[in-house]
């Protein structure tokens, strides 16, 4: 293997990881006093936690080469259901559980529609996101839910365990759990098989439809959970509070696709993708870079990470 091939190989496998390390190094050098501190590490881990949770859900869907465009709306709905139930006196745990289950049911329904009628997931979930927005406005009348949100509801999103935010712990547990599921269980392997070649998966006896329905339900449940945790973190639920997570989640998954498994969505990659997005937003704010420049830089860095990985991947084609 020539040096050039080695570089390409390194770029292909570790390009995204290297980008993350370089970005962290640059910020650490420029603002060691504010960026490279334990406090800020805690901040970043908390800030990306909700994105990671939604992005794990998106990863399950992307593994099957499908799309769920209702992630953001589901996150908004999760927050609204959780906060509304908490305000009406339902015990916090049940309120949160109901929100997650409610969203999972919607995902189940989307998955059923997609597999039963063989319709495009792209369009079905887009339509579903509109329906969810309608449900949110029916519940809230367009208002933010904040009056009467119990203080205990905020505790999940704001409390710390041994100096680590509870949100970070939840994120790490879910990351490990879903990494294990995707890597070491028949369920995960079947999802990858469906994404690799759906017809072959079907012929080899994999219950493709059932797997897809479960994946959509899991994805929706995770989005709902992120929404609940967001409303807990903020102490309020905004009718479109989770919408912003949608594009970011897919950006994280696409960044992560460039890692480890040669262009296939994977959990660790998604985590690194989320870290890149989170560190960029955090570091650029700390460096007081104006918003427009933050957008420009973030976009450029994502494109560069993708292109560099593609250059590395050319080794295989040649």
């Amino acid at each position: 293997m020539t040096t050039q091939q080695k570089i390409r190989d390194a770029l292909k496998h570790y390009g995204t990881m290297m980008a993350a390390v370089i970005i962290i190094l640059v910020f650490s050098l420029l603002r060691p006093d504010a960026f490279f501190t334990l406090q800020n590490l805690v901040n970043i881990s908390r800030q990306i936690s909700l994105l990671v949770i939604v992005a794990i859900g998106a990863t399950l869907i992307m593994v099957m080469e499908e799309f769920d465009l209702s992630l953001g709306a589901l996150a908004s709905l999760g927050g609204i259901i959780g906060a509304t139930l908490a305000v009406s006196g339902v015990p916090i745990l049940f309120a949160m559980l109901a929100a997650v289950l409610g969203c999972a049911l919607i995902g189940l329904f989307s998955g059923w529609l997609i597999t039963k009628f063989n319709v495009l997931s792209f369009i079905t979930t887009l339509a579903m996101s509109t329906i969810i927005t309608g449900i949110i406005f029916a519940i809230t009348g367009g208002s933010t839910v904040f009056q009467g949100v119990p203080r205990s509801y905020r505790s999940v999103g704001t409390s710390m365990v041994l100096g680590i935010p509870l949100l970070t712990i939840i994120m790490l547990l879910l990351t490990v759990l879903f990494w294990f599921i995707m890597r070491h269980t028949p369920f995960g392997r079947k999802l990858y098989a469906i994404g690799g070649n759906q017809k072959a998966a079907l012929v080899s006896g994999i219950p493709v439809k059932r797997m897809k329905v479960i994946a959509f339900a899991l994805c929706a449940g995770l989005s709902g959970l992120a929404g609940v945790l967001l409303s807990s973190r903020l102490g309020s639920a905004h009718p479109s509070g989770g919408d912003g997570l949608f594009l970011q989640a897919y950006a994280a998954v696409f960044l992560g696709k460039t890692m480890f498994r040669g262009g296939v969505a994977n959990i660790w990659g998604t985590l690194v993708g989320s870290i890149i997005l989170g560190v960029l937003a955090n570091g650029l704010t700390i460096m007081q870079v104006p918003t427009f420049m933050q957008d420009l830089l973030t976009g450029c860095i994502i494109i560069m990470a993708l292109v560099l990985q593609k250059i590395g991947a050319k080794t295989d084609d040649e």
Partner: protein
Amino acid sequence: MKKLLALLLVCTMMLSLAMSVSAEDLKGKKVSLLTANLSSVTTNQMAEYMKKGLEEHGIEVTVVDTKGDFGQLASRIEDSVSAKADAIVLISADPVLVLSQLEVAFEAGVPVFGCDSGFVEGMQVNATSDNYMMGEAITRYLFNDLMGGKGSVIALTHRPHPGVVKRSNAFDDIIKEYPDIKLITEQHVEVPGPIESARTIMENLLLSNSAKDSVTAVWCAWDEPAIGATQALMDAGRGEVFVTGVDGNSQAVELINEDSNLKATMAQNFEGMANIVVTEVVKLFSGEEVIPGEQYAPALLITKTE
């Protein structure tokens, strides 16, 4: 190709470096202006007024916009605390929505101001208009002077905004006093993109209310939906429908003077609000006493005749 990419990467990093170095070279206090809606003309105006006013005092100002995302806004507040900002100013963002993060700022001793936001315990000053009074004044003008106490009205609003919801509450209270005025529907206007959203809503409502005089007026909680609604009405040739807004933004005032459907707005004194914040921030930095609470910049009714 690879060289070009490498060059781009280097340029991007250098640009970040250059920007940070220039920022660090500046002396004086650091203030973060944080908003979730900088694309709004008025929010933008306030940010600009404050930036200018604070920089005149040698204060270093950063404007951060999270484009409608309150989760991101919460994160950026945390970042500003990490970056040891000397003060945070929330623009057009309800502090209640980011209360946990503001509490982190309060604990870290970072003073928090609001500009057209809201006020929570622990904040310094929120400069705003009395939104309920503005809603009341414009609603009474519409119902009495324009509609003559009867007819049907469409309301376009955005209740998640802390100021806007007070205007809508005033509308809700006052319409009860007018039995001859019927509310056709209240519609939620999307933000960002309120002009386009209101225009689309209005176009659709006109299809279901196509007869002349089936709609007497459109009450808009702020100027941007009023502009969108006016555009839709003008396109449809429905010159008989009155539109009112609130804010007094320049595009709306222009439409009022052009004899369009838009008849009146309440001029919010955004410059006044920004000036209040600048004054209070400077007072705080100079060691003077700042009395916590809301301060109102007075609003004015704008019509063509005035």
